[in-house]
């Protein structure tokens, strides 16, 4: 795994220097939270099972961040590095494909976690965000969700020939999920028909799992979500390993 840590550090710096990617990962979710938090506040509400708007939105917006880094940033970044010939240059060195992929994963994981932490801090400071869960459980659920979305992103990056087509494909998958899975709009306000369709979108188990764990659920009620996400991780990692190309 020689080169892995240095590459991860370099990728992290490059991610932060990319204004659009860091805006959507770090700033955009906070803007959403402040915008709607100021409208709806965070008073306990029977509509959200006794929780406030912000209490349900922080874990739900975390799902948006995971989608942004995993699907959009990852697919575009890997596809564009391949298109421009950056990966060709790596291929001429002893760097192993696994070290390259690992460095992407750790960078995106840290950026996603950073986005979530900023969101939580904003919630705490401005809206007295409540937390009824177990930190380890939430962290585990977050990690599993990241794994599933990163695997999806790698498959997109492998299948799409150019950065442009990777971007288009990622957007086509991302936007319906963002609005229908309960990530951007609370699932409580979505019509039943939409909700039964949204069950099949990979972002839905992320929202359900994170909201549940955040507010004190155990794992037992979320077996379906865990199975769904673990299955995506496994299947799409295998596909990604077969479709990854340096050029």
């Amino acid at each position: 795994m020689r080169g892995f840590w240095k590459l991860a550090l370099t990728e992290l710096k490059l991610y932060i220097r990319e204004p659009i990617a860091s805006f959507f990962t770090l700033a955009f979710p906070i803007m959403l939270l402040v915008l709607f938090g100021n409208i709806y506040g965070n008073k306990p509400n029977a509509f959200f099972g006794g929780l406030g708007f912000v209490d349900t939105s922080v874990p739900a917006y975390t799902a948006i961040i995971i989608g942004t880094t995993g699907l959009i940033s990852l697919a575009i970044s890997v596809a564009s590095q391949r298109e421009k010939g950056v990966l060709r240059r790596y291929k001429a060195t002893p760097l192993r494909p696994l070290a390259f992929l690992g460095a992407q994963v750790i960078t995106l994981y840290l950026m996603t976690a950073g986005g979530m932490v900023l969101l939580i801090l904003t919630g705490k400071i401005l809206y007295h965000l409540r937390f009824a869960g177990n930190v380890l459980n939430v962290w585990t659920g977050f990690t599993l969700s990241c794994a599933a979305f990163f695997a999806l992103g790698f498959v997109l990056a492998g299948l799409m020939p150019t950065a442009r087509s990777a971007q288009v494909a990622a957007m086509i998958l991302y936007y319906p999920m963002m609005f229908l899975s309960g990530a951007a709009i609370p699932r409580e306000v979505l019509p039943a028909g939409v909700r039964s369709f949204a069950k099949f979108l990979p972002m839905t188990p992320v929202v359900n799992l994170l909201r549940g764990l955040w507010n004190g659920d155990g794992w037992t009620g979320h077996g379906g979500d865990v199975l769904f996400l673990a299955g995506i991780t496994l299947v799409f990692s295998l596909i990604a390993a077969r479709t990854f190309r340096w050029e």
Partner: protein
Amino acid sequence: MSDQPVIRISGLRKTYGDLAAVDGVSFEVRRGEIFGLVGPNGAGKTTTIECLEGLRQADGGEIQVLGLDPRRDGPALREKIGAQLQESALPDRIRVWEALDLFASFYAHSVPWEPLLEQLGLSEKRNAAFGKLSGGQKQRLFIALALVNDPALVFFDELSTGLDPQARRSMWDFIRAVRSAGKTVFLTTHYMEEAERLCDRVAVIDHGRLAALDTPENLIRGLGAENRVVFSTEAPVDPGMFRALPGVTRVEPVGERTIVYGRDDRLVVEVVNALSLDRIKFRDLRTEQADLEDVFLALTGREMRG
């Protein structure tokens, strides 16, 4: 071991569909030489070099590079070679020093990169982003990257593309210093002057086949090309007066200029003597020797390639 050739290929073949881009090329590269590969666009230079680097899979033939087969021992081979590719890139926002630091970390053994930056005239650009470098600066950075692992053998595909005339000349000195440090250099170029001045031996390939391989001097001598003496006079001179001179093969009057072709090394002396004897005033007299460019054109023709 040290007398073993560094590269040995025999019958190298690489096809893309119906096209045989490299069609049975064989040669050896010796330890410590600067070996040049020249040929028209599409001749198969990049394909050959990338089969040697293990970036492309050859379809046939035997390949040994530093005693390894690039098709089997790719990772081990890439530890020991350096490569500047004809086409590649780095992330736009990576800084020059970060790129060197990053690439150095990929190898089991690497050298400090500050001296490389210095030698390649990039010290002032160490904090510049790759995307903000000029074409020639990018090229020099890629050359530095090819050397961070202190390779025994280094490949440069189109060494001086994008370099201005000064930079090209200092690049030649730099490459000679790389060779003096004990490395073997394999390069391709479209500048025949570069191949002639820099390379110990030059291979000419065309349509995927080897057309010639020798030292630049032998290639030029082998062409048996004529030297030329060119000069201008006030009034046209009678071409007949040169035809009888020893070694002259033909005379070509072009307006007020006259070109005398010949094979004799004393050609210029004979021509000047003849002019002085007849008290003909001349100016702008120069001699033109056959060079590698003539060899190249004689071997590969003059028409543009696809």
